[in-house]
């Protein structure tokens, strides 16, 4: 188990850089954590390190946002918050996204737990004392 700590917002880019160094190639990342803990904010920082120049915004409504991180580098940013049933996930064709060689960041993965590929990296973000965020992953 690896643990990273973010002490304040201005340190988030450094932590995002350290985080990405743990992975050599694009992976599927599932982010667990309660509302307002900073899932989108951390994904924004990781995307910035990857070289995404498009604005990274919350995909709660759109379900998935797609960003380019350079030639042959793609990011899919998912949010399953407003999904009501697993059939909706089948309906929009999640398999095609998951089988691409892209960075896949998933918010609210609890709702599609059974569909996550076995190689998915599961991370949890927790809020410790005021301001301190802890990110733990295998």
């Amino acid at each position: 188990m690896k643990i990273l700590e973010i002490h304040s917002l201005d340190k988030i880019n450094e932590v995002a850089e350290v985080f990405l160094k743990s992975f050599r190639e694009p992976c599927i990342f599932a982010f667990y954590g309660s509302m307002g803990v900073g899932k989108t904010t951390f994904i924004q920082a990781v995307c910035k390190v990857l070289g995404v120049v498009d604005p990274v915004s919350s995909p709660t409504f759109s379900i998935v946002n797609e960003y380019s991180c350079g030639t042959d580098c793609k990011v899919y940013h998912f949010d399953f918050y407003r999904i009501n049933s697993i059939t909706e996930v089948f309906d929009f064709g999640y398999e095609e996204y998951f089988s691409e060689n892209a960075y896949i960041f998933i918010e609210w993965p609890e709702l599609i737990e059974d569909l996550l590929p076995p190689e998915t990296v599961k991370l949890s973000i927790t809020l410790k004392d005021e301001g301190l965020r802890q990110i733990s992953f295998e």
Partner: protein
Amino acid sequence: MIILGIESSCDDTSAAVVKDGRVLSNAMASQSVHEKYGGVVPELASRAHQQNIIPVVDDALKSAGISSAELDAIAFTRGPGLMGSLLVGTSFAKGLALSLDIPLIEVNHLQAHILSHFIIKEEKESTLPGLPFLCLLVSGGHTQLVVVEDYLDMKIIGQTIDDAAGEAFDKCAKVMGLSYPGGPLIDKLAVKGNPDAFAFSKPKLSGFDYSFSGLKTSFLYFVRDQLKMNDQFIELRKADLAASLQKTIITILMDKLIKASEKTGITEIGIGGGVAANSGLRNALRQEESKRNWNVYLPEFRYTTDNAAMIAITGYYKYLKKNFTNHSVIPDARMKF
């Protein structure tokens, strides 16, 4: 000139017929469409839009009293939206345009929301916005300030850097235990509450960009702290919480809109998107209208949600400019203006 519009960017499949800028029909896929066909069409039932698109187009043509042979062009949503959903509408539009041998017209979903203000209505007193026109587009997925120089010449001058305004409504509603999407419920509760009961943090961004992520967090922590002192807090102060939250979101939206109007000198002002149905926002615009000599345009409720009439009207204005699309077109999930 008769245009068929097809919209399939997100949850709903819809089709509409526009004749010379007037809406003849605006059909939305729903159970009632399925019912006409004796339930869900099983052969096509792999994805929601695939099930819906043929019945909904058929419905739009029938209620307009138009046969497909009378169509002059097919307009469709190319993006932004969900790739799988967009593919269904795009492929269908291409196939239909090819078989009827008429032009194909790609439409940007967000531009279409704005151009729904330029649907010509039957009522005598109705007037279309003058140009340039300043439009605040607010929905669950978008918050943008757009300057419209001409029907097809638009520029985004500000947008959200994190959450959309509609998302702030919905997520704070969830904190209060309301069901998703809770925006309309907040609006209803707010009427009975005191908008000055609580103060929540507002972003300090320069320029015309918006941010709603901080408000969501501030609301969440405030409620959490209050619940520690009194576990009945939400129940007791529901209306005040809703009214204060709504006031904060509207103030954030209006501050930038006013600033943008002052900076650009534009006084033809409109709103669009799902949050444009919010009564508080509509009232705030009417108040500023009289105070600032604006001409304010509020969309009809049926055009605030995703609909194909706005796709067809955009197709109409593009047709006038002979702005047609090649059949090699593919959907663009992150389509820009």
